[in-house]
C-alpha cells in the first residue's frame, strides 16, 4: 500500500503543477497478493498499457522481473529487492540495491559500543530478499570486526519472539540488529525483550522501524528509547520538515490524498521512484518514448529527490554510501551526531564479495 500511496501522491503533485509538457499522469496499479505468478501476470498485463513501471514494490519482484528482462525496452523505475532485477539495464532505482552495507553506521556503533559488537544477535525474515539483505549486512559487520553469536531465520506467521529473547540472553547477546524485521515485528521483539528484562547495550535498525506507530506499538518510550536508526532517507515523518522542503511537500500530498494514512519507508520508495521518473521524463522533451526515457534515465548519475534521499547513482547502479543516523529520545526519532540537515558521508559502501 505504501509504495502505491507514495507514487500516486508524487504524480498527483506533478499533475497539480501542470504535468509534463501539459500532459497529466495516469497511474495504473495492481496488487500481487504476495504471489509470484500474480506479480508476473500483472507485469505482463500492464506491459502494453504503460510507458513505464514506476514505484513498484514487491517481495516477488523477481517474478515480474522475468517479464521485464524479456522486454528490455520497457523502463522500470522502482525500488527493487532482487539484485538480478536491480541489474537489468531497463531498471533504475532511486536507491539501488547492492549486496553489502554502508560502513558509516557500523563504524559509528563500533566506536561507541566496542564490546557490544562482539556479541550481536539478530533475527532475519525467512524471505529471500531479507536473507540476501541480511547476508550483505552481516558480511559488512564481520568486515568491521562484529561477531554474530545469534542469528535465526523466522517464518511467516511467527509473532512471538520470547523464546528468542531467552536464547539471546543465554548466548550473551549484547547488541541486537533488527534491520530486516518489519516495524511491527521489531516492536513486538522489543516489547518482549523489555518484558523479560533484556536490555542490550546497543539496539539498531533501519527504515522499517521509522513509522509513526512504532513507539506506541512497542509499548512506549521506556521500551524504545536509545534505539538507533540508520537509513538513506531524511526524517520524512516530519523531523526534517523544517530543513528539507521536499519532506513538507511529501507530507502535504500524502496526507492530502490519503487522509489518516501514516507514511512508511515504502511510501518514500514510491515517492522517490516517481520523482526519478519525472526528472528523467522532463529531460526527454515533448515527445517521450520508452527509448528516449531509458536514455534519459541512463544519464541520472546523481539523485537525491530534492534532499529526501542520500545521493545515489541510479544510472551506475551504485548504492548510497551516505546515511542518516537517528536515535529515539523520549519516544521521538532525533538526529544523532549528525548535522541538522543532510546526510553523513564518512565511510564507503561495503560491497559483499568485493573484499
Amino acid at each position, binding site marked *: 500500500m505504501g509504495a502505491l500511496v507514495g507514487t500516486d501522491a508524487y504524480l498527483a503533485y506533478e499533475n497539480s503543477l501542470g504535468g509534463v509538457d501539459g500532459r497529466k499522469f495516469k497511474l495504473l496499479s495492481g496488487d500481487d497478493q504476495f504471489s509470484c*505468478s500474480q506479480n508476473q501476470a500483472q507485469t505482463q498485463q500492464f506491459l502494453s498499457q504503460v510507458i513505464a513501471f514506476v514505484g513498484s514494490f514487491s517481495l516477488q519482484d523477481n517474478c515480474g522481473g522475468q517479464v521485464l528482462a524479456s522486454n528490455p525496452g520497457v523502463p522500470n523505475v522502482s525500488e527493487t529487492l532482487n539484485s538480478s532485477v536491480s541489474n537489468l539495464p531497463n531498471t533504475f532505482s532511486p536507491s539501488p540495491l547492492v549486496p553489502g552495507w554502508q560502513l558509516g553506521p557500523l563504524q559509528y556503533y563500533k566506536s561507541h559500543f566496542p564490546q557490544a559488537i562482539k556479541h550481536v544477535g539478530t533475527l532475519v525474515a525467512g524471505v529471500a530478499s531479507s536473507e540476501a539483505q541480511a547476508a550483505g549486512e552481516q558480511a559488512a559487520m564481520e568486515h568491521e570486526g562484529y561477531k554474530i553469536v545469534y542469528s535465526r531465520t523466522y517464518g511467516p506467521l*511467527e509473532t512471538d519472539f520470547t523464546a528468542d529473547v531467552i536464547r539471546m540472553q*543465554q548466548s550473551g547477546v549484547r547488541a541486537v540488529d533488527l534491520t530486516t524485521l518489519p516495524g511491527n515485528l521489531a516492536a513486538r521483539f522489543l516489547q518482549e525483550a523489555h518484558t523479560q528484562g533484556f536490555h542490550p547495550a546497543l539496539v539498531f535498525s533501519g527504515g522499517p522501524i521509522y513509522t509513526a506507530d512504532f513507539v506506541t506499538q512497542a509499548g512506549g518510550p521506556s521500551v524504545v528509547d536509545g534505539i538507533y536508526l540508520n537509513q538513506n532517507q531524511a526524517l520524512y515523518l516530519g523531523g526534517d520538515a523544517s530543513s528539507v522542503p521536499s519532506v513538507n511537500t511529501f507530507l502535504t500530498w500524502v496526507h492530502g490524498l490519503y487522509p489518516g494514512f501514516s507514511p512508511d519507508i515504502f511510501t518514500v520508495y514510491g515517492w522517490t521512484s516517481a520523482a526519478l521518473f519525472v526528472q528523467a521524463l522532463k529531460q526527454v522533451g515533448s515527445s517521450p518514448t520508452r527509448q528516449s526515457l531509458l536514455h534519459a534515465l541512463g544519464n541520472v548519475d546523481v539523485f537525491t529527490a530534492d534532499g529526501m534521499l542520500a545521493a545515489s547513482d541510479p544510472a551506475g547502479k551504485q548504492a548510497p554510501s551516505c546515511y542518516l543516523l537517528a536515535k529515539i529520545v523520549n519516544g521521538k526519532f532525533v538526529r544523532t551526531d549528525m548535522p541538522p540537515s543532510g546526510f553523513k558521508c564518512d565511510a564507503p559502501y561495503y560491497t559483499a564479495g568485493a573484499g
Partner: protein
Amino acid sequence: MSAFLSYTIVGIATGAIYAVTASGLVVTYATTGVFNFAHGAIGMLAAFSYWELTQNHHLQPLLAVALILFVGAPLLGALIEFVLMRRLHGASAERSLMVTLGLMLILLGLASTVWGDTPGHTGIPAFFAGHTVRILGVNITVQQLIVLGTAVVVAGGLRLVLKRTRIGVAMRAVVDDPELIAMAGAPPVRIARAGWVAGVMLAALAGVLIAPLVTLDQTTLTLIVVNGYAAAVVGRLRNLPLTFVGGLAIGVGEAYVVGYVPLNWQSSWLPNPALALPMAFLFVVILVHPGERLRAVGEVRVSRVPKVTELRESLVGAGAVVAAGVAGALVLSGTWRATVSQGLVFGVIALSLVLLTGYAGQVSLGQMAFVGIGAYTMGKIAGGGSWLGMLTAVGVSAAVGALIAWPTVRVKGIYLALATLAFAQFAYYVFFSNLRLFNDNGSIVVHRVALPGIKLTGANAELVFLSVVFALCAVAVLALRRSTFGRRLVALSDSPAAYATVGLKVRRTRLAVFALSAGLAGLGGALYGGLQGPVSANDFQVLVSLTLLLLLVIWGVRTPTGALAAGLSFAALPVLQSHVSWVSSLPALVVGVGVILVGRLPNGVVGSIADLVADRRLSRSMSGIEGTAPVGVEGGAHVA
C-alpha cells in the same frame, strides 16, 4: 536447567493461545457436529471489531468486549445457524466443511475490504499493559495469564456444563438425533442455535484475547487456529481437558524448538521448525488415534450421481475444448489469453480433485502441495523444461501422494481433510519456503515443456497445447470413471464399510486414487511452472488449495466440465479484481458466497444443469407412459 524451565513457561503461555482457540472449536463440534473452519475467521472479525470500537470509537475496553461477546457474537452465531447450518443437518462432514470454508473466505474478504492493513499499524493494547508476573525466571504478562486462565476455565467449566447440566447434555444430544430430542420435549432448533451462539462467543473471546499477543492482520488471526487443530484432535474434538493439554504441549514444543534446534539447521535444511511442529503434531495425532473409523451406520440419502459419460461424448467434448483453445489463440490477446492458459492449467489441477473428491469422496485441502512438488521436480530435471521432467514430476508427485495416503488410509471425513491440510502446511513451511531449494531468490525457474518434434514457442502455441493437455486428461479421467476402478471409487465414496464388507481392498483403492490424483496434480504443477516461469512458496499456499477446491464444488466436483469451469474462473477472478477497486478480496468473497449458495447442489452448477437437461429429455420420452420407474441414477445411495 533454568533455560529449560524458562522455555517451558514461555511455551505454556503460547500453548494457552492454542488451547483457548481449540476449546472453542471443540465446543462448536460437540454441540453442532460441525468442524468450523471459520472459527479463526470469526475470532479475527471479533478482534478487528474490538480494534474498531476501542481505537476508532474510543470505547472503554471492557464495554467493547461486552458488546462483542454479548451482542455481536450471539447475533452472528444465531445468523450462522439460521442462514447456513440449519439446512445442513444430516449432511456429510464434507458438505459442512465446504460451507464453513466458504464462510471463512467471506469473513476474510469482508475484513480485508473494511479494514485493510490499518489496524496492523496501531495494534491493540494488552489488558493491564506493562504488568508482569515472574514465574521460574520468566516474566509473564497479565494478558498471557488471562489467556491461560480463560483456557483453564473454558476447559474445566464447559466440560462440566456439557456433561453435567441438562442444557449441555441436550446440546450434545441434538447433534446425534434432533428428532429424538424433539420427542423428548426439547426444542432442537433452539438448542442447536445455542450451540452456535456458544461456539461463536468462544471464537470471539479467543480473538479479542489473542489479538494483542499476535500481529493484527486478517490472515495471521484466521490461520493461528490451524495450530489449535492439533490440540482439538488430541481431545478427539470432544474432550476439553485433553484439548487444553494438547494446546499446551504444542506451545511448549514450539518453545523448545526455538530454544534448542541448532541455528544453522534453521537457516539451512530445516526452515521454520517452530511453525512446522504443530503441523507434524497434527498429522501424527490423527494417525495415532483417528477419531472416525469406517462406520456402516448413518443416514442413507440418495443423491444423484452424474450420468457416466460415454467415450464418444467425451471425445466430442475434448474436441470442443481443443477447438475453443484454437479459437482462443486466434481471438484473444494479452491478459485474457494468459488467463485462459492459466485457467486450463488450473483445470488440470481441478481434474485431480475430480478423481479424488468427486469420484472417491476423499477431501484434500492441500492439493497445491502436490502441484508444488510437480513444479519443483520439473524445474530440477533436465534443465527445467523437458518431457522427461514432466514425466518425473508426475511420478514424484504420485509417489508422495501414495506416501501420504498410506498412513491416512484409516482416516476419513474431517480427519482426512485435516491430515491433508497438515501435510500441505508442513510442506509449505519446510519445503516450499526452503531458500536452499527454491534458491533463485525464493523461487525456482521452470521452463515450458519441450516436446520432441513440436515447436511450442509463443503464447498462442502454449494455449493450444494446454487445451490439448486438458482435453486428454479429461478424456483419461472419464475413461477411468467408466472402468471397474471408477465404479469402485464411487462405491468407496458411498460406503467404505460396505466396500470392505464385500471383500474389496479399501487401502489399495485409496492408495491408488491418491497416487493418481497427486500425479495429475504434479502434471498440473509442471505445466503451471512452465507457464509462469518462476514459482515460489506463495503459489502453493493452503488458501490457494481451498479456493480452487471450493470453486470446483461450486461448478461441479464430479465432472471434468466442472473442473474446466473451476480452473477458468480461478484464473479469471484476480483479473476481475483488478477492475474492481471498492472491494479488496473479490475472489474470496465470490467463492465464499458461491459455495454457500450453490453448495447445497451435490453436483454443482454444471451437474445441476446437466440434471435439468436430462430430466427434460426423460419427461419427454416418458410422456404418456405410466408407472415407469425413474432411470438414469447410477450408484444412487450415498451415506451422509
